[in-house]
């Protein structure tokens, strides 16, 4: 059976990756699972310099979900290359690097740096983080800015570019098309959805950042709709995510048009999830007599 899929010029041995920000830099989960069985490892969002992130509390559990406002804490490009790249370079599966900036130039500069590094699988442009004031979702909710970011990164690198779209729009189709037209090789859908949780006893928001991004099983029906809408609008592959915790969930994303999927929040409670998804996917396709996962992709009867 063939599980391999293509994201631009990048081949994945199977369509199951892990979502940025939910898998650290790979090395942490290497103690618990065999990373080389994944489709790809996607690392936490990185900008040019180090980032402190938001004050805690940074996450809060809600009904069937999680709200986070980490604020993209990270070591910056140099720190990342020094601390984490040697390990990631040793993996047999590709590393996808999630990048961001507060200006178009910064996005492009980070892209150039990783292009120069060599050995990177792909770059994922995070234009959709709801938890930082500058950068992040401002680029993801304005088609023109979005196209500029993608185009600038396109000029900066020949690496496959994945644009991670914001779910927080009226209609995702024009954003999907804008990214495609500006040279993105793929889309990632969805990032977390702006949300709020309150502590009644203290009358305060539960997160220091006040608002955060909602993820986990509760958003899956929203994510499926967004992937379906985007898949109808573009030809480039889509990486679907949002609440995936089982092979069935993943297969739903594929059937509505995703070429690959990412497991996010579920890693936090069950680090085996991505591997279980791969195994369950194989089993399901076998049962259905489907030889190649790509036959399943986009095969919704609607």
């Amino acid at each position: 059976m063939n599980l391999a899929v293509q994201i631009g010029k990048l081949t994945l041995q199977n369509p199951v990756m892990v979502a940025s920000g939910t898998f650290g830099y790979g090395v942490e989960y290497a103690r618990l699972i065999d990373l080389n069985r994944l489709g790809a490892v996607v690392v936490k969002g990185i900008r040019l310099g180090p980032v402190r992130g938001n004050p805690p509390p940074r996450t809060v559990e809600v009904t069937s979900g999680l709200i986070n406002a980490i604020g993209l804490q990270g070591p910056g490009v140099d720190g990342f290359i020094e601390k984490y790249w040697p390990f990631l370079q040793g993996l047999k599966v590709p590393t996808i690097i999630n990048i961001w900036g507060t200006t178009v130039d910064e996005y492009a500069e980070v892209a150039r740096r990783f292009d120069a590094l060599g050995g990177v699988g792909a770059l994922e442009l995070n234009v959709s983080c709801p938890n930082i004031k500058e950068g992040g979702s401002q680029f993801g909710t304005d088609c023109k800015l979005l196209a500029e970011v993608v185009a600038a990164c396109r000029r900066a690198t020949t690496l496959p570019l994945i644009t991670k779209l914001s779910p927080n729009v009226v209609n995702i189709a024009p954003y999907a098309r804008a990214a495609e037209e500006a040279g993105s090789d793929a889309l990632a859908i969805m990032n977390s959805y702006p949300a709020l949780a309150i502590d009644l006893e203290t009358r305060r928001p539960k997160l220091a950042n006040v608002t955060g991004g909602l993820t986990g099983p509760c958003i899956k029906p929203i994510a499926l709709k967004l992937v379906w809408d985007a898949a109808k609008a573009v030809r480039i592959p889509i990486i679907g995510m949002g609440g995936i915790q089982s092979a069935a969930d993943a297969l739903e994303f594929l059937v509505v048009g995703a070429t690959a999927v990412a497991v996010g929040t579920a890693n936090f409670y069950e680090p085996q999830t991505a591997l279980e998804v791969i195994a369950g996917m194989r089993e399901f396709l076998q049962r259905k007599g489907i030889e190649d996962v790509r036959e399943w992709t986009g095969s919704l009867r609607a």
Partner: protein
Amino acid sequence: MLGGGVLERTVPILTHERDTGGYFRLAVRAPDITPLVQPGQFAHVRILPLKSALLRRPFSIFQVAGETFSILYKAVGQGTEVLSRMRPGEELNVIAPLGRGFTVPRAGDSRPLLVAGGYGMAALYLLAQRAPEKGIVFVGGRRRQDILCVDEFRALGWEVRITTEDGSLGEPGLVTQPLVEELRRESAGRKLFACGPTGMLRAVGRIAEERGMAAELSMDEHMCCGVGVCLTCVIPVKTSAGWEYQRTCMEGPVFDARQVVWETDP
């Protein structure tokens, strides 16, 4: 897979008993985890029957005996509530042992001073057991029911000094009072190890700082992944360059008191 001494296992509950007040002791059989445990480390527990919440819950590893380890916990919310109704034979999923624990004193070190509030005792037991030198443990709580494991610490040959805020057991007042008295007698060269509510840890940190003493504090922060990937559990920690957020689940839960930044917005 890298080494690193942490495993994910689905483990059966062997015993589960009510302690005082809302506290419970729960032991699981986890033969390949127990040899790895260091004092002050924790287990990240997936309470399998808990369906209304997603995340694991962290608990200090309390005691280790052969193939079993136990936790000592208080039922405070939805997770521990469901946990408290589980029976022997039912299973939990644990990732353990996690975090950087206490530095176990070496033979010849001065008599260690332990300071515990509430379930903080759970994080300190293994340290007391493995320390070559018996010391003193200061235990504080709101009421008599919050004073745990006194007999066990005494059985290890440790001296136990109890305080309760309502005076229902031991001296009335805060746990730091007898500690300060003890340090007035002698503080040079001694080291503090503390686990408990943040207010208590801050007080212990200050006491140590004022006297130029070393202190290790086990910080209680909300966790999500427990393994260092999500960056939920951070506290501000001093570095040569100023300060940075470090992970309680990886760089901690035990931190050198001198490194902890206490201001809420540093």
